[in-house]
C-alpha cells in the first residue's frame, strides 16, 4: 500500500487526467452518477492538502489541514464525543482532543474509518446520546474522506487489486468456454479460501505445490479430452437404444422384455458409398436374478439377416447389478442413402412375467473405412484451421505459430507476447518432430503449457497508457476491463464480442450496452448465485447441521425421520435466495425489496416445505416462480428466508444473537466486535428464580444486564428477537417451549416495533442508506476481488448517492460499481525499490510478534 505522503502529490499531478476520466465515464453511465461529485466545498477551496514530509510536532505554524480541523471538525467532536473521548477521558483508549498534529490527523486512516463508521451507523455517540446532526455528519464525512484520508474528490483512489488467480468456479467456467470441456473443479481442486466473505479474493487465493500439480494435471486432462491428436479418423455415427423405436408400439430399445415380441429399428443416413463397420453393443438386464428364460434376437441390416442369437437368462449367473454386454460387428458395403438397422425379438417358451430385458445399448456406424475417405475428428475445426498441416518444416512451424497465437491470446485474455509465443512454438515443434508423433500432438502439448501458464491462471492487468506517471492512477486497459466485467458478471473469460471490442479499443465506448447484454445473458446466473449466496450466506444451508428432534420438541412436536432436511430441500432453500436476487436484478427493481419485498419464490420442493403438498401442485418442477404475498404475511424479503433463518440458528434452537449479528453484518454493514474472552455462558446468565423455563428473551435480557455485554447486545438482540416467529427450520411459529413468542422490541437507534414485519419496514425507511452502503461494499468487494479500505469510502458514498437518487434501482448499484474509479482504474506501480530479501542463516523462526 502506498503511504499517504506518496499518494497525495501524485493526486495533484493527475487532476487533469482525472477530470478527463470523469468526463469520459459520465457519458457511459447508465444512471447519473456524474453529478454527484459536485457540492464538495472542501474540494473547491482546498481539494487536497499536500503533505510531503512529516511535520515537527509542536511550535510550527498551523498547516491548512490543521487549521481546517480546528475550525470545522473540533467543535463537532467536542460537542458529541468529548464526554467520553476528551477532557481527560479516553474511553476505549481514545482521546480525540489529543489529536494535534498533521501526523496524528492525516496519517491515521484506521481511526477515522472507525469514526465515520460508528457515527454514521449511530453506534456513537453511545449511551442514549443523540446522533450527530445531519449537517455535522456531512461536515465530518467530508473532512475525513477528503482531508484525513487524503482522497481527491475529483480523482478517487482506485486502490490496486493483487494479481488475481482464477478460483475454482472461474477456472471451471473458463476451461469450458475455451475448450468446450466440463472439468469438475469441485472434485479435483481443494476449496478456495474465503476472505471478506467471498471466495474470489485475490490476496487470499494462493498457489501451493499441490495446487500447481493439480493445474498441470488438469491442463493435460482437458487438452487430452478436447484437442484431437490426429487430423483424420474414420467417420462415425452413433445411435443409442433410445433412438431404436418399435413402429407399432412406439417403445424404444433400452429395455425389451423377453416375453413380448418387438421389432425396433433406426435408420442411418449414409453420405457416400463405401465399406462400413456396423458395431452393436447389446446387453441383458433384469430386476430379479433367479428366473431363467430365453429369447431370440435377429439383427437385420436393411432386409438382410446379420445375426440371430438366443439370449438365455441364467438367473444369478450375471449378478444383479451390472449386466453383461455383448458386442457384434458386421462389415457391409453400403451405397449412399438411408440404411436401416433393426432388432427383432421373439420370446421363447419358459419363464414368468418378471422383468428380464434385452437391451440395445448403442450402435455405431464407422466408415467409409477406406483411409482416403477419413474425416477430421470431432472438434478439429475448433483448434485447427486448415484441412491438414503443411509438410514443409517452415510452413509447419508458421502454422503452429498461427494456431498457438490464436489459442494463447484467447486463453490469456490479451495478446500473447512474441517471446512467449516463440517458446510455445518451440515446445510444439520439439514434440511433433519426434518420431511417431503427429503435428496435432505437438500443438496440443503446447496448449497444455498455455493452460499451466501464470498468464492463464492469473488475471494479469495492465494500465491503459504505458506512459502513466509512477505512483498515480490510470485506467486499466480494455483487455483488463473486459476480464473485470466477465469475471464479475459471468465468472468466466470474456466472450468474443467483449474481446473484439477490447481489441479495437471500443469497449469503454460501448460499456453501458455491453453491461446490459451481459446482465441479460444466461451466464449472469454465475453472478447471481456466487454473489447472492455468499452475501446472504445462504450457501451454508447446504451443510448446516440442524436437529429436527430438538427443534420441533420446543414446539411440542415429536419429530420423525421425515422432518430432517433432505438434500433436495437444502438445494431449494439455497436456490430461493438466488431466485430472489435474480428477479430484482433482471427486473431492475429497487434493492429496497430485498428488505421488505412482499413476494417470495417457490418451486415444488420449497412450496411443499413452506406450505404443503396440495399447494405445491401449483409449482411443478424445479423452476422458481414468484408468488405475491398478501399484506401482513410473515414472509417476503431476504431477512426471513428459510436459508437465512437456518444458517443463523444453532443445531437445536434459534439463535437471536446470531440472527442479530447477521443483520448487522450483511444488511446494516456495522458488525459488532467479537465478544470478549471468557464471557459467561448464556444459560449461566439466565434468571435462576423464574417459575418457568426462562424464555430466550428473558435469558438474553439477563445477559444484557452486564454493561460489558450490553454495548453490543443492545444492538444485536432486538434484531434477532424480532425474528423469533421463525424457528430454526425457517417455519413460522407462535410459541417456543410452550410460551407465546414476544417479538416486540426497540432498536438501539430508538425505533420500536412489534415484530419482524414492522422491523423490515423500519429498516427500509430509517436505515436505507446504511443498507445501500452495506450492499455496495459487498458488491464492490466481490466485483474487485479485494477487501474495502479506508480510501474506498468516497467511492462507496458516490454509489450510494446515486442509488438514493434512483430509488435504489438495481441498475444504479450495478452501474455505480462498474463505473467506479475502483473498477475502471488502478494505482500504477510506485518506483520504490523492492525490499532486499533476507539471506541470513536460519537460527530462529517465527519470532513472536
Amino acid at each position, binding site marked *: 500500500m502506498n503511504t499517504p505522503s506518496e499518494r497525495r502529490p501524485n493526486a495533484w499531478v493527475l487532476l487533469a487526467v482525472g477530470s478527463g476520466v470523469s468526463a469520459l465515464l459520465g457519458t457511459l453511465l447508465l444512471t447519473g452518477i456524474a453529478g454527484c461529485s459536485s457540492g464538495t466545498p472542501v474540494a473547491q477551496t482546498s481539494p487536497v492538502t499536500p503533505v510531503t514530509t512529516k511535520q515537527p510536532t509542536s511550535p510550527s505554524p498551523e498547516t491548512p489541514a490543521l487549521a481546517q480541523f480546528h475550525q470545522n471538525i473540533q467543535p463537532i467532536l467536542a460537542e458529541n464525543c468529548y464526554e467520553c473521548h476528551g477532557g481527560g477521558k479516553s474511553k476505549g483508549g481514545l482521546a480525540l482532543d489529543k489529536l494535534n498534529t498533521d501526523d496524528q490527523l492525516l496519517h491515521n486512516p484506521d481511526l477515522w474509518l472507525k469514526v465515520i463508521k460508528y457515527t454514521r451507523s449511530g453506534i456513537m455517540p453511545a449511551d442514549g446520546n443523540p446522533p450527530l446532526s445531519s449537517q455535522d455528519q456531512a461536515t465530518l464525512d467530508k473532512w475525513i474522506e477528503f482531508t484525513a484520508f487524503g482522497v481527491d474528490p475529483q480523482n478517487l483512489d482506485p486502490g490496486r487489486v493483487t*494479481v488475481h488467480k482464477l478460483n475454482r468456479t472461474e477456472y471451471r467456467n473458463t476451461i469450458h468456454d475455451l475448450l468446450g470441456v466440463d472439468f469438475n473443479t469441485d472434485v*479435483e481442486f481443494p*476449496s478456495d479460501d474465503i476472505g471478506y466473505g467471498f471466495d474470489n479474493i485475490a490476496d*487470499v487465493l494462493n498457489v501451493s505445490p499441490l495446487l500447481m*500439480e493439480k493445474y498441470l494435471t488438469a491442463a493435460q486432462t482437458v487438452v487430452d479430452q478436447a484437442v484431437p491428436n490426429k487430423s483424420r479418423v474414420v467417420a462415425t455415427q452413433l445411435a443409442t437404444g433410445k433412438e431404436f423405436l418399435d413402429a407399432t408400439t412406439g417403445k424404444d430399445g433400452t429395455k425389451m422384455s423377453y416375453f413380448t415380441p418387438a421389432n425396433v429399428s433406426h435408420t442411418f443416413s449414409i453420405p457416400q458409398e463405401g465399406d462400413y463397420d456396423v458395431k452393436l453393443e447389446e446387453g441383458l438386464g433384469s430386476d430379479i436374478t433367479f428366473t431363467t428364460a430365453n429369447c431370440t434376437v435377429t439383427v437385420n441390416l436393411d432386409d438382410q439377416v446379420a445375426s440371430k442369437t438366443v439370449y438365455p437368462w441364467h438367473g444369478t449367473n450375471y449378478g444383479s447389478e451390472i449386466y453383461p454386454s455383448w*458386442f457384434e460387428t458386421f462389415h457391409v458395403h453400403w451405397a449412399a442413402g438411408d440404411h436401416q438397422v433393426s432388432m427383432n425379438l421373439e420370446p421363447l417358451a419358459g419363464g414368468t412375467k418378471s422383468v428380464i430385458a434385452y437391451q440395445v445399448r448403442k450402435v455405431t456406424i464407422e466408415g467409409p473405412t477406406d483411409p482416403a475417405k477419413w474425416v477430421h475428428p470431432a472438434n478439429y475445426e475448433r483448434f485447427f484451421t486448415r484441412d491438414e498441416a503443411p509438410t514443409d518444416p517452415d510452413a509447419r512451424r508458421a502454422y503452429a505459430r498461427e494456431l498457438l497465437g490464436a489459442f494463447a491470446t484467447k486463453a490469456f485474455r490479451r495478446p500473447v507476447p512474441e517471446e512467449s509465443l516463440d*517458446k510455445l512454438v518451440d515446445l510444439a515443434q520439439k514434440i511433433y518432430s519426434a518420431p511417431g508423433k503427429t503435428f496435432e500432438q505437438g500443438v496440443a502439448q503446447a496448449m497444455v503449457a498455455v493452460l499451466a501458464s*501464470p498468464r492463464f491462471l492469473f488475471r494479469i492487468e495492465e494500465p491503459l497508457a504505458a506512459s502513466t506517471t509512477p505512483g498515480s492512477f490510470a485506467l486499466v486497459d480494455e483487455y483488463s476491463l473486459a476480464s473485470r466485467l466477465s469475471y464479475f458478471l459471468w465468472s468466466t473469460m470474456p466472450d468474443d464480442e467483449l474481446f473484439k471490442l477490447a481489441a479495437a479499443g471500443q469497449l469503454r465506448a460501448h460499456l453501458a450496452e455491453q453491461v446490459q447484454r451481459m446482465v441479460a445473458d444466461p451466464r449472469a446466473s454465475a453472478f447471481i448465485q456466487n454473489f447472492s449466496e455468499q452475501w446472504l450466506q445462504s450457501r451454508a444451508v447446504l451443510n448446516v447441521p440442524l436437529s429436527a428432534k430438538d427443534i420441533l420438541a420446543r414446539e411440542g412436536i415429536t419429530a420423525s425421520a421425515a422432518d430432517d432436511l433432505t438434500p433436495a430441500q437444502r438445494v431449494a432453500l439455497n436456490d430461493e435466495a438466488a431466485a430472489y436476487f435474480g428477479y430484482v436484478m433482471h427486473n431492475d427493481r429497487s434493492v429496497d425489496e430485498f428488505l421488505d419485498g412482499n413476494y417470495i419464490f417457490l418451486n415444488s420442493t420449497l412450496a411443499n416445505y413452506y406450505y404443503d403438498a396440495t399447494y405445491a401442485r401449483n409449482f411443478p418442477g424445479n423452476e422458481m416462480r414468484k408468488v405475491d404475498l398478501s399484506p401482513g404475511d410473515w414472509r417476503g424479503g431476504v431477512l426471513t428466508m428459510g436459508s437465512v433463518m437456518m444458517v443463523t440458528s444453532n443445531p437445536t434452537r434459534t439463535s437471536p444473537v446470531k440472527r442479530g449479528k447477521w443483520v448487522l*453484518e450483511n444488511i446494516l454493514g456495522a458488525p459488532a466486535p*467479537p465478544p470478549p474472552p471468557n464471557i459467561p455462558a448464556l444459560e449461566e446468565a439466565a434468571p435462576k428464580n423464574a417459575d418457568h423455563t426462562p424464555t430466550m428473551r428473558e435469558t438474553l435480557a439477563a445477559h444484557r444486564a452486564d454493561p460489558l455485554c450490553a454495548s453490543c447486545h443492545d444492538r444485536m438482540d432486538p434484531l434477532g428477537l424480532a425474528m423469533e416467529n421463525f424457528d430454526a427450520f425457517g417455519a413460522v411459529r407462535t410459541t417456543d417451549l410452550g410460551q407465546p413468542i414476544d417479538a416486540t422490541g426497540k432498536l438501539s437507534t430508538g425505533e420500536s416495533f412489534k415484530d419482524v414485519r414492522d422491523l423490515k419496514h423500519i429498516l427500509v425507511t430509517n436505515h436505507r442508506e446504511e443498507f445501500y452502503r452495506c450492499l455496495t461494499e459487498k458488491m464492490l468487494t466481490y466485483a474487485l476481488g479485494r477487501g474495502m479500505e479506508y480510501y474506498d469510502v468516497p467511492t462507496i458514498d458516490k454509489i450510494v448517492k446515486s442509488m438514493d437518487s434512483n430509488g435504489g434501482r438495481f441498475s444504479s448499484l450495478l452501474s455505480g460499481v462498474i463505473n467506479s474509479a475502483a473498477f475502471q482504474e488502478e494505482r500504477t506501480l510506485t518506483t520504490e525499490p523492492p525490499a532486499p530479501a533476507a539471506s541470513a542463516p536460519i537460527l530462529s523462526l517465527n519470532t513472536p510478534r
Partner: protein
Amino acid sequence: MNTPQPHRQFAAERHHSLERRRFLRGLGVCLALPAMESLMPSRLLGAASPGASALAGALGGARGATTATGAPLRMAFLSFPNGAIPSKWWPTGDGKNFELNDTLKPLANVKDKIQILGGLADQSADNGGDGGGDHARSGGTFLTAVRCKKTLGADFRAGISIDQVAAQQLGHLTPFPSLQISCDTVQNAGACDSGYVCVYQHNLSWSSPTTPLSPETNPRLLFERLFGTGGTAAERQQSLLMRQTQQSSVLDFVGSETRGLGRTLSARDNQKLDEFLTSVREIEQRIQRAEASPDKHPDPGIATPAGIPASFKDYVRLNLDMLHLAFLTDNTRVASFIFKGDGNNSDFAEIGVNEGHHFCTHHHNDPDLIAKTCVIDHFYATQFAYFLEKMEATKDVDGNSLLHNSMIMYGGGIADGNRHSHDNLPIVLAGAGGGTLKPGRYTQYDPAPIANLYLSMVDRMGVTALDRFGDSTGRLANV
C-alpha cells in the same frame, strides 16, 4: 442360430466392473496390502544423506530423517478440532504406571507405544488483545507457534509451520517433501471465525508466513498423486512416467513465463508469483529426483480408492490409509493431517450426535452436551488408534514397525472447547522415533510452550540450525 460367445467378429469383452466396484466399496474399511517388503524402495537402507547436526547425531539420527538403523524416520501431525473434555482425557497415575481415561481408551492396544503429554500450551492462540476467534487462532498457530494476524483478508500472516521447517531441510530425500491431508471438505460460506480470514482454519501447514499449503481432501486424488492413474500397477507406473515427461515439457515454459512477468508487477503481485514459482520449482525437483532413481516408485498393488466415502469414519480411515501408504512407500517422511478444521460444527449423526461438534463443546456444563462431546472425542481417538495399530502392524525395512520409526503427534490447539483455553493441550505423541523416544508413559510437564516439543521432534528428524521456534523457551526434555 447361435448363443453369445466371448468372441465374435469384433473382440468381445465381458465387463468386469461389477467385481471391481464391489471391491472398491469395501476399501474404506480394509485395505488389503501385499507383502510389505515389496513396497520398500530398494535404495533406502544404503541411502546417502546430507550433513547432520551434532544435536541430531547425539540423538541417534546420524543422517537426516533417518533412524540409527538406516530406516526412514517419519513425522506427522494429526489435528482434531475443538479440544477434548479434560476430565475424560487425562489419564490417572503417571510415568509408566498410568491408566487411560475414557476418551483415550481406544488406544489401549498401543498404550506402550504412546506418550500422553500434559502441560503444553499454545499461548499464541490466546486472546492477547485480539478478541474472539480462538478457533481460527488455534488453527493458524498450532504448528507455527506464532500469533496470526487478525484480518479478514489481504494481509493474513502466520509463520512457517514446524512440519515445513523439516520438509524444507529434508524434503529432497523423498519424492514428496511433505503431504497435507484433510478430511474437511466444506468451506464456510461467508465469514469464518470472528474476524479471521478462513485460511487459518483450513490449513495446518505453512511454507512461509503468507503461504498456507492447501491440503488434499480426496483419497482418490491423493492416491493418484502418489502412485499414478490406472487400474493396474503397470498402468500406474506408465502414467507416472508419462506425467513426468509431459510435466517436464510444460514446466520449463511455465517457469520462464513467470519470471518474465515479474518486471511489470507490484511487490504484492510478485509475492503471489513467487509462491507460484516455488511450486513450479518443487515439482521440477521432484521430477529430477525421480529421473535420477527410476526404481523408486513402489506400487501398493491395490485398487485406486473411488473417492470420498459417505461415512465420515470410512472417509477418515481411507485418508489415514493413504498416509500409511505414503509412509510405507517412503513417498514422504513429513505430513500434516486435519480431521476437521478447528471450530468445525459438523454433526456426528452416524454415531448418534445430531448436534454440531462446536455447539456441543460449548456445553455450559450441560451433562447431555458434555456426554455428546465425549462421544466425538472418543470417535477421533478411535480413528487415531486405527492408524497407530496399522502403523504398528507394518514392518519397516529394518525389521522394526513403521510406528517404531515414526513420531506421530495427535492433538489440537484448544484444550477445553467450552472455555477456549490453550494451555494444558490434549497431546499424544506416538511412536518411538526410531528408538529416540520413550513411549509408554504419561508425563505432566511444568507448563511449557508446545513449540518446545516441536524442537525436540525436529532435532530427531535431523533438522539443523534451529535454536528457537515461535514462542519456544527450550527443548522439551524427557520425551
